[in-house]
């Protein structure tokens, strides 16, 4: 499999805190990579350095190389906004725009950037909502406020909003941790379907979830990438002691 996103000696500092240390790994195209590890291990920090979300955090410093299709996204001439169009993100807590309707939330990536052709917008909204299997549930109330939806529906709406702008990579930061088991299942099924078209990188606290949805798993501990490899191998026959301790529940 070819590498879509590559990390080479990624280091992230927040002031004096060295959050990610010398991480080097590849993320394959059209697959799901899970990043696991205990709280504070730097897994979300790694994820957020892939679409340059740290740019807005005062005191943060990213060094090393992060490349997307071989291009260094932290290069001087690169516009972070252009990167974020290609690398979408879904957050832990569903965060639809509260003042917008369901329809407007899906099309927000276009609408907030200027005008959008109405017919085109309707088409994008329908195809995006169908893709996340939300269309049948909301097609009769597209103009209703997005906050009227349940938490699980809101999260699928946020995924629809992310894929509406046609990214290549989708980052998911514990996308199901605020949801009930049934909604979690739906999100996991969705991830399975989305990987045909997108490169998916998911941070999760839930090891069963990582085992269920991912092809590759990377284990981070105290800011260091301890081990990464095929999910099956990581969960059945890990190479490092720390990985084994974590997945068998001895700590974390």
């Amino acid at each position, binding site marked *: 499999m070819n590498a879509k996103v590559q990390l080479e000696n990624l280091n992230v500092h927040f002031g004096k805190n060295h959050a990610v240390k010398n991480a080097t790994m590849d993320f394959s195209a059209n697959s799901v990579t899970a990043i696991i590890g205990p709280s504070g291990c730097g897994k979300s920090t790694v994820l957020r350095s892939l*679409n340059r*979300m740290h740019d*807005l955090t*005062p005191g943060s410093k990213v060094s090393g190389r992060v490349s997307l299709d071989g291009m260094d996204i932290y290069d001087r001439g690169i516009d972070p*906004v*252009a990167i*974020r*169009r290609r690398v*979408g*993100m879904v*957050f832990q*807590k569903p*965060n*639809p*725009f*509260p*003042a917008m309707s369901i329809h407007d939330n899906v099309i*927000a*990536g276009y609408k*907030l*950037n200027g005008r959008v052709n109405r017919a085109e917008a309707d088409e994008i909204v329908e195809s995006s909502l169908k893709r996340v299997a939300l269309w049948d549930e909301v097609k009769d109330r597209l103009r209703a*406020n997005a*906050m009227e939806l349940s938490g699980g529906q809101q999260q699928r709406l*946020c995924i629809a*909003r*992310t894929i509406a*702008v046609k990214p290549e990579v989708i980052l998911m930061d514990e996308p199901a941790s605020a949801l009930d088991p049934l909604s979690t299942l739906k999100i996991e099924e969705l991830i399975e379907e989305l990987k045909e078209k997108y490169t998916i990188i998911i941070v999760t606290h839930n090891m069963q979830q990582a085992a269920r949805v991912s092809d590759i798993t990377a284990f981070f501990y105290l800011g260091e990438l301890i081990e990464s490899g095929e999910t099956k191998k990581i969960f059945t026959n890990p190479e490092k002691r720390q990985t084994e301790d974590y997945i068998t529940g001895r700590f974390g």
Partner: protein
Amino acid sequence: MTVLAWRKGKSAGMTLLMALFTLAVLIPLVLIFIHIIKMGFSSINLDFFLQIPKPTGETGGGMANGLAGSAILITLASLLGIPVGIFGAIYLTEYGGGRFSDLIRFCADVLSGIPSIITGMVAYTLLVVPLKGFSALAGAFALSLIMIPIVLRTTEEQLKLVPGTLREASLALGIPLWRTTLKVTLRSALTGVITGILLSIARVAGETAPLLFTALGNQFWSRKLTEPIAAMPLQIFSFAISPYDDWHRLAWAGALVLVTIMFGLSLAARYFGRSRQSGN
């Protein structure tokens, strides 16, 4: 039982005391209102809103030029004060951070505490002296100096209340920071920001001191913004200290109109503030 009775008695006594203190706060406000209405209401008629003051010795006349002058001064002051306040607040919350932001914040706090006559002196030095004359522009500038810190600080507070997850949602979609700020962050805070603007207008509408040696006042209509201009508070002041009964009546009427306008603005501010709390 006697213990319970003692407690109940103590509670009732305290409640009564609180009620008395509340009354003590309310009574002056109510008295002022009643007095102004009593003195001013009879002098309010169509002429008050349509005519300029008559020369001494003639009866009648109104404060049309003062009303228009106040409207012009407030509009001009808003044109400067509101954008500077809002964009300053956006800088502090969305773009700034660090020592420079703290310095701006501190300066805004000091500026809002400065006696308003000082802002009048600043405008006098900066505009009246170089332009060689009192003018509406100088008056508006002085008022805007009072508006800026109020708008800035209230807008900043409102922007801080917007959850970071909302900004991130927009940024992660590839929306530039400036569009995110205007269309998501500021939009979410809009009702609170409008409340702050209305309160700042209510505050400067009644300011007299900063206008004394900037706008100066005018018994007639002003034709240019570089001329002295009439304003409600100035007119009320000069009429109230004049020796003519007719002018005293006009001053009372003016006071009533001014208080009513400020009452309306505060009410509107409350309305906006409440619609924000009641949800999206």
